């Protein structure tokens, strides 16, 4: 087979270039720490990477949503705590007030304290969280409860503003929404809620009417039960989404590990390949130098 000098040079050049090209590829992976530096390195893998990134971003957002929802729920729960303790005190006062050992001036004093409790509960009903009213349904920028006062400045009635129902939902999983607010009507229902009961109790104390006091004591008790029930519901909601948040934390770790597996380079393996490549390169260059030296011209002198 006939071999021309140029053939030899072409082949040598190609065989020396190949390990050099390989070296460039390995070097890029080593210095970036990534197996996938562009889509063509691994198109399918690159697609997977995008999918996982999108998922991680979504989960991060759900975590934020849960955090935000928990803040509202926690505020609601602490408001409920306060209402409950106020109502317990009111019940105690009702019992004392219904006792025959008390006289009308005692009852007036007790009514004073009940009035104070009433004011507290009213201000809790208009509680603000982050600049918005907690119990105003979706009309969060308008005060939900407005009171009417008599000539002495005492509350006679309370009205409910606009439409303070309406749910505010947060998405905590794909297509899963959680209502994070508590409409005022669930807690401060004007027909049989704490406010009405307290007004009645106070007025009954002021009018010195023992049977009425007993009846409004029961009403306060009912109102307390309602608030407590609502409180328990919220408690279980909080627990549920907290659990979801924990699951997300675990999932994030898993996904991140998976992402790394696809994306990141195995440094040890690359180092080995680099070493092998160097051996090949040296061999190619060494062989080349031997070949180009052998020439008839040298021998013909």
């Amino acid at each position, binding site marked *: *087979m006939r071999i021309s000098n140029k053939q030899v040079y072409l082949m040598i050049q190609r065989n020396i270039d190949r390990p050099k090209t390989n070296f460039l590829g390995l070097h890029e992976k080593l210095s970036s720490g990534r197996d996938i530096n562009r889509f063509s390195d691994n*198109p399918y893998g690159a697609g997977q990477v995008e999918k996982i*990134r999108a998922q991680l971003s979504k989960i991060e957002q759900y975590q934020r949503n849960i955090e935000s929802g928990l803040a509202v729920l926690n505020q609601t729960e602490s408001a409920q705590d306060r209402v409950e303790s106020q109502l317990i005190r009111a019940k105690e006062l009702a019992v004392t007030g219904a006792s025959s050992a008390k006289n009308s001036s005692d009852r007036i004093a007790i009514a004073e304290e009940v009035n104070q409790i009433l004011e507290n509960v009213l201000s809790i009903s208009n509680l603000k969280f982050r600049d918005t009213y907690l119990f105003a349904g979706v009309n969060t920028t308008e005060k939900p409860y407005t009171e009417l006062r008599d000539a002495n400045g005492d509350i006679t009635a309370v009205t409910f503003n606009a439409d303070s129902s309406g749910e505010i939902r947060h998405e905590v999983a794909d297509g899963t929404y959680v209502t994070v607010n508590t409409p005022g009507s669930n807690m401060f229902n004007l027909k049989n809620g704490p406010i009405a009961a307290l007004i009645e109790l106070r007025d009954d104390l002021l009018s010195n009417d023992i049977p009425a006091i007993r009846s409004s004591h029961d009403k306060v008790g009912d109102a307390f039960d309602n608030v407590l029930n609502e409180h328990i519901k919220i408690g279980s909601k909080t627990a549920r989404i907290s659990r979801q948040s924990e699951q997300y934390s675990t999932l994030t770790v898993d996904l991140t590990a998976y992402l790394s597996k696809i994306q990141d380079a195995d440094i040890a393996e690359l180092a080995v390949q680099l070493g092998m490549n160097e051996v090949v390169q040296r061999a190619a260059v060494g062989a080349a130098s031997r070949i180009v030296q052998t020439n008839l011209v040298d021998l013909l002198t």
Partner: protein
Amino acid sequence: MSGLFGLLQMGKRSLVAHQFAQNIVGNNISNAGIEGYTRQTTQLGSGGSIETPWGQIGMGVQVDGVMRSRDALIDKMYRDSSGSLGDWETKSFSMQNVEAMFTESDNDGIGARMDSFFNSWQDLANAPESSQARLALREQAQGLVDTFHRISNLLTSERQSINTQVVNVADRINDISSRIASLNERLPGKVKLALKQENDALDERDRLLDELSDLVDIKVIGRDEGGIAVYIGSINLIEGPHANKLSIEQESNGKLSISKLYDPGGNELKLNNGRLKGLLELRDVQLKKYEDRLNTLSRTLVKEVNSYHKAGYTLEGETDIDFFDAAFIDADSINLSEDVLGNPDKIAAASIDADGDNGQALLISALKDAPLVDGDGMREFYNTLITEVGVDSRFAIDSEETYGVLQNQAALQREGVSGVSLDEEMVDMIKYEQAYRAAARMVTTVDSMIETILSLK
């Protein structure tokens, strides 16, 4: 002629012939490194014979001609693989540029920006009364829009630069054609063993044909009456000394200036291989495909977000407000509406006129994965696009490598036939030198024989 003077002539002819042969050897050695040089071999033949009473006797040596070692079949193989290599080399180069345009990092790239954009709708849903959340949302939207612009513009400028190359290549083809045609004027056709070949000119023509084969898919046909014809597919580009030109027409389609190519017959140029084919396919098919996909994405985004946004209520109780400017739906021009740009509070989060309602914000954030684009979500659609970019790029890179190997093989084979081997030339040089010396010896011998005769008294 016979006799002593015949002998002298024979010696002279041998000297001349072998000196000539040495000349050819010297030429080969000097030109050994030149690109495209075809080695030449002196064809020495018998210088005829004469009749004598004792039978025919030979009259020495003569130079029959100079053979040029070229194999037309190997040339064809080389040129075919050059054409494929040119096609895929071009595509591989451009696709790697395109890949770089779409590169996704953790917070840049259309995918990441889309995620952030839709996420900020949920942040708004968490605090629907907040102007702060609206400002953040608007910023994310702007980032997304800017990214659309950036990539779309990069694609357009890549297409434009490819167009410039198309024009350059077309001009080069026309230039090479005329040079080949003028060479054809003085060169014969497919004859390999012609006696009076212009080897330099033939080498030059072959070099030009090689270059042409990289640019377009050519078929070289020798003509019996001399000269060669070159075809691109069924189009006759060069016929002997006549070169037919490709013509170029500029068209403008909005922001892109496209040069359309026409064959000598006036029809739009259709190619099967070569750099030009690669360029045209990139410009008109591949890159356009990616642009179209981007546009589909931006149009869907504008249409869907706007339709839900218009049904929502702003902080001031207004409704029917566009989020994106409805007049600009393509990826290069998509923009936020003037309303939103002027006042972020005009971003509607609520489904009813209540500040704390976040219904629309929730609905809009759900658009990211809703099956709005041929049954896929927008994020999914985008993921598919970049996977395709990766696959296309990978395929181009691999094809380039494959055809590179093939071309290299063909080049090696061609070298095997046409290349100079210095060792071989050395041997020939010794051969001819010895023959020359022997011929000279013969001349002096015959000279002394003549001397002997002349000194007879």
